[in-house]
């Protein structure tokens, strides 16, 4: 009877860990797929899309996580297959410097105009 109890407790603990582990994997899969562009419905993320390739991509991400790859390694793997385009959060490089730089430039330009206006108003 005692042995049965120990066995039961062990099963419960193992189940708890496997559920917790699966949930953690699912959360990471969702996080990664939200940052990936769908190959078929190009206006949607992999997370939002229900296209066959998006579903396959989610399965593959989960598989890669189970294999022990981290978030960065999965992005690198997919970028190697599909190019920088696949990720929404694009890296800063010679092809994307305008994309990253323009908002900052416009922010400072706008700030300078506002500052100038305020200074002139005071004078």
């Amino acid at each position, binding site marked *: 009877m005692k042995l049965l109890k120990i066995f039961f407790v062990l099963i419960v603990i193992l189940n708890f860990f496997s559920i917790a582990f699966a949930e953690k994997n699912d959360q990471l899969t969702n996080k990664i797929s939200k940052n990936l562009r769908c*190959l*078929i419905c*190009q206006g949607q993320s992999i997370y939002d899309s229900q296209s*066959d*390739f998006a*579903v*396959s*991509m989610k*399965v*593959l991400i989960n*598989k890669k996580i189970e294999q022990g790859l981290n978030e960065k390694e999965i992005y690198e793997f997919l970028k*190697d*297959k*599909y*190019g920088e*385009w696949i990720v929404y959060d694009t890296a800063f490089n010679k092809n994307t410097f305008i994309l990253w730089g323009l908002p900052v430039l416009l922010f400072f330009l706008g700030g300078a105009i506002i500052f100038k206006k305020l200074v002139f108003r005071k004078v």
Partner: protein
Amino acid sequence: MKNKILIILLVFFLSFCFFVLFKSLESSGIYVPEKTENRELTEFVSKDLFSKKKITSSEIFQGSDYYILNIWATWCAPCRKEHPQLMELSKNSSIKLIGLNYRDDSKKAKKFLNKLGNPFSVNITDQNGTISIELGGYGIPETFLINKDKKIIKTFIGNLNNESVRQINLIVK
């Protein structure tokens, strides 16, 4: 003077917007992957459509100078459309054709091949679609031309047509 600068800036800004929008008219808006050629073929394990036996990519890609890997499914209408082109390519003895059946019902796939003809030397399955993604597949149908060094030398996104067949025959000649 101040107004003049403003007008110049406004004209410059509007010209910039016009140029960007005009340029975007020329583009279809549909992205074509930049990495479609000269890619190493990823190793994979699949199952034979008919025997259900496990088969590795190194077992599949041997004994030929060129290989064509075609991703297809019975539910995909363009796959049916390109079938005559695949049948045509199967006559070329220097190419080994491999069919990758994507997320499909095996019974329907076998029925499809029995009805329209089987152009493939090897028929493999991709039940959850991950092999196609590992290969860098973009949609369905898709066809990869692979050389004996297991490098993808050309990718045809969408259904094959007579022009694609001509291009393939020119490369493998």
